[in-house]
Structures are given as structure tokens and as C-alpha cells.
């Protein structure tokens, strides 16, 4: 069991490395499906990265102030899945160490913040 978790830890770390090197491109996508009452209680974000004939899908749900939960960032749920080309989930990766770091890297690179900062600094 522990060795299996270690395999997932390595997979997440590798995804993070490929993201940081720009070798895995993530794009922000709308949450599929009709919006429900639950959607008003959570702020959701979804990133998708294609790899071969499948996709890595990273979803975060942060409770809104409507739920009046203290420390909303700490209650954020981040889920990593492997999905088919139709975005149908095939495997949900267990909640292992490194997924929040991956999410931060994905947001950083998908939003092209680094490029924005460099452009700003190079502005004459």
C-alpha cells in the first residue's frame, strides 16, 4: 500500500516538473455539466493537460463565503484525475503529497504570470 502511494507521489512530482519546464501545457477549462445549487457554494477551477490519447485533469473547489467556513484556503479540495479524450474520468489519483504544489505550478504557468512579469520589467 505504502509503495503504491509512493508511486503516486513520484507521478505527481513528475507532473510538477514537466509543468515547471513547460513540457506539459495546461489550459483552464469550464466545469462541464449543468450548474447546480452546490456550484454557488464552491468556487471551482479546472485545468486540463493532454498527454498521448488521455488527459490529466486538475480540479479545485474552494468554499465561498456563503458557507462561512474560516480559513477557506485550507478547506480547498484539489483533485487530480486521468480522463479520456471526452474528459470522462478514468482514474482518480489518491490525495497524496505534492498535489497542492502541482496546482500552484499549474496556475502559475497557465496564467503566464512569469511572462507578464518579464514583459513588465522589460518595458521601456
Amino acid at each position: 500500500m505504502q509503495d503504491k502511494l509512493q508511486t503516486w507521489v513520484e507521478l505527481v512530482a513528475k507532473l510538477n516538473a514537466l509543468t515547471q519546464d513547460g513540457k506539459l501545457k495546461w489550459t483552464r477549462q469550464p466545469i462541464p455539466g449543468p450548474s447546480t445549487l452546490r456550484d454557488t457554494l464552491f468556487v471551482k477551477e479546472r485545468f486540463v493537460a493532454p498527454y498521448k490519447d488521455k488527459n490529466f485533469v486538475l480540479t479545485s473547489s474552494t468554499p465561498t463565503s456563503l458557507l462561512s467556513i474560516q480559513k477557506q484556503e485550507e478547506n480547498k479540495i484539489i483533485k487530480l484525475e486521468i480522463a479520456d479524450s471526452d474528459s470522462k474520468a478514468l482514474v482518480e489519483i489518491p490525495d497524496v503529497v505534492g498535489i497542492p504544489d502541482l496546482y500552484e505550478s499549474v496556475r502559475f504557468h497557465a496564467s503566464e504570470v512569469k511572462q507578464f512579469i518579464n514583459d513588465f520589467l522589460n518595458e521601456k
Partner: protein
Amino acid sequence: MTIEEFVSKLWDLVVAVFDFLTSSSVANTATWVGAVASTLVYLNVRTIRADFLFAARLPQLLDALQSNASTLSRYLNDFENNTDAIQTELATCKANLESVAQKMHGSTKKRIRKTARSLISDIDICSNLRPNPQKEYVRGIYTSLNGIIQDLLNLREDQKWSTRDAG
């Protein structure tokens, strides 16, 4: 048998038992048994103390290591501009790992102790590389660090269950 004879035989028996108990071979054996028992008690108390200290410090050490890992990951997003900060973070991380390795006793924690020590030497090697640090090396340290954190999280869960069993 008269009363005097009985008392005399009883006295002889008491003297014989006393002589036996105070003979050097029995005294030596008793001394050794006592010494072994004292050592076992001492070792048990030491183990209990170490386990208690580890259980008390584990959440804090886990937080510290998770913070080290997340910070390293953040710096790796913009490696070229964060090389100095990475070196500082690795030094903090090494100190936290040393603290973890010192508190790992017993066979179940052997693997974590071994990995922590190996990671400490990886950080030392990384600090001596030129140019310093090197991205791929830092990335390797980040991955191994996450592995140790995952092991410690599993250990914390195991401890919760063993506490419930005991309580």
C-alpha cells in the same frame, strides 16, 4: 525429638540457607540478574520517552517539511531568479530532516530514518556542486522529500489508530 533438638536443627537450617544466599556464586548471579533487569527497564523507559517525544513533535516536523517542499516547488517555477533562496531553503530543510532522523527509533521507522539520512547527504552534495544549485538535483531532492512526508503522514495515521486501540 525434644524441643531443644528441634530448635537446634531449625537453627542449623536457617544458618545453611543464610550461608547459601550469601555464598559468592548466588550473590554474583543475583547481581547479574539485577543488572540485566535494570538495563531492560532503562531501555524500555528510553524507548517510551523517545516514542512520546516523537509523537509530540511529529505534527510540527511535518508542517515544517511540507513548508520546505512547497517553497522549493514554488522556487522551481522560476529557478533562475531563486537560486539563492533555494540554497537557504535547502539548509532549513536539512536541519528539519536531521531532527526527523534523530527521532526515528525502532524497526518500523528504520526506512524513514534511512531515507532522511540519504536525503541529508544529497543536500550536502547539492550544496557542493558548481554551479550551485542545479535544477535537476533540487528537483530530485523535492521528490524524495515528498516521499518522506508521505511516509510520515502514513505513520501519523498508524499512530492515531494505535492510540485508539490503547485508549
